């Protein structure tokens, strides 16, 4: 991609993307797209997000998203009180026929999650063993200077962009972004996802404490999803601006 090379990498060593990087890139890309699609369907079924251990239509939401007819549908029978008080514990029967395609939505989500998890683990092992992660992706300490960061930002804003070779060495912004996606966002998606599972949290209740409850985990899952969608858009735009055909060749046939 368009990049200001960070300097300490001899250009002659560049051979584009390794075969395992290309293969895992596309499996992960397909998984992430499927997870985003099915995840959005799941979110449409209950477009309310909460903070804490539990949350539902009868408890206050952190925020609500107008993304399906389930948004503030209001179809509830008169509530019955279990415990009165300042914030009473009540029960109410739902009378509204909600939008719900979770039968295939959830199964598709977890099928894609398996591909993400297994490919992701193989990628991390290969990335550590080959040195790809440390040599190409994680920024060096001396690179993390405001001046270098500014330089790279400016070079990204200059149009038309220089055509990039495809593959490492990467610029500072690329390193920061790719590292954040691979080492922070995707593992966080897996962990917050597992923190919503009753069977997994029975075995590892620490996941509940880590995120402050399964509904907090769901909300974090949503925000990281939003960040990953933003990354995806910027990533595709940058690929397009820095020589789309050249970039696609590099990530597919490895030219």
């Amino acid at each position: 991609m368009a990049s200001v090379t960070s300097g300490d990498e001899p250009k002659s060593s560049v051979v584009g993307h390794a075969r395992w990087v290309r293969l895992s890139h596309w499996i992960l890309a397909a998984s992430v797209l499927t997870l985003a699609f099915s995840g959005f369907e799941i979110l449409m079924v209950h477009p309310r997000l909460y903070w804490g251990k539990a949350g539902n239509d009868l408890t206050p939401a952190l925020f609500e998203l107008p993304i399906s007819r389930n948004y503030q549908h209001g179809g509830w029978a008169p509530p019955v009180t279990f415990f009165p008080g300042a914030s009473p514990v009540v029960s109410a029967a739902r009378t509204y026929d909600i939008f719900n395609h979770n039968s295939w939505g959830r199964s598709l989500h977890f099928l894609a999650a398996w591909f993400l998890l297994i490919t992701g683990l193989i990628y991390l092992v290969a990335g550590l063993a080959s040195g790809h992660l440390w040599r190409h992706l994680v920024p060096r300490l001396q690179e993390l200077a405001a001046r270098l960061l500014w330089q790279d930002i400016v070079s990204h804003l200059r149009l038309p962009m220089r055509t990039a070779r495809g593959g490492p060495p990467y610029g500072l912004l690329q390193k920061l972004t790719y590292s954040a996606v691979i080492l922070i966002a995707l593992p966080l998606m897996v962990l917050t996802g597992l923190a919503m599972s009753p069977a997994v949290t029975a075995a590892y209740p620490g996941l509940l404490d880590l995120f402050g409850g399964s509904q907090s985990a769901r909300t974090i899952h949503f925000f990281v999803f939003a960040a990953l969608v933003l990354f995806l858009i910027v990533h595709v735009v940058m690929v397009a601006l820095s020589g789309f055909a050249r970039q696609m060749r590099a990530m597919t046939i490895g030219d």
Partner: protein
Amino acid sequence: MKKDKLVIVSRRKIVTGLASTGGLLLVGCSSKELPPTYGNVLRMGDLLTYRAFRMLLPARSLVREYSRSDITSSPATGTSNPADPHQELYNAERGTLYDRLRAGAFADWRLRIEGRVARPRSFSLAELQALSSRTQITKHTCEEGWSAIAEWTGVPLRAVLEAAGILPSARFVNFFAYDDTAEGIDMLDALHPQTILAYGMNGRDLPPAHGAPLRLRVETQLGYKSVKFLERIVVKDEFDDLGKIGSLQNGWAWYVGI
């Protein structure tokens, strides 16, 4: 002696389990001991999740139990009254019967335990309430995305199954309800100490909309496995998809630990 035998059995199970990991996605197509996939890729994914969870997660972990101050409001979704013909799931015969039982304060209601048990029998509500009870404050996680914490009081399913004498070959426990739904769980979840038949919620009788007089609580799975308005329990050696009233033929995953 008995202990040694148990160890051998569980080791053999582990070895069989490990040997079949290679064919994780395929093995369900022929085996009657696993949920069928019908050749559907989504069901193959469900089966992979089920097998992986059973293989990788320690058995018998207890779900977190909360304190009374953590109790939240609880929506009642799905069927709220099996006797109401306007409900999405309704069976005229069972609905009418339910209406009659409820009119008599469930005095004539009986829970039948049948199938692969040595002594098939029924329990009245009073008989179930006479067995030693368990009260737990747990989180109900709905597949829709919401959750609710409530206190549930009931009798461990294990005690009821043992009273009827589960045969050693039994592998699955299926539950039939008055609202024309049915669900099944494997023996690991059925014998789980927190899997109870609940007749009380938040310190009072189980409210009608939450499945009166008796509902299942499977705390290690999502809410839709916790069948409301229980009518009958059937113990089986082999997997049964429960036909048109079971989750599988309606497109839903059978195992929902996630």
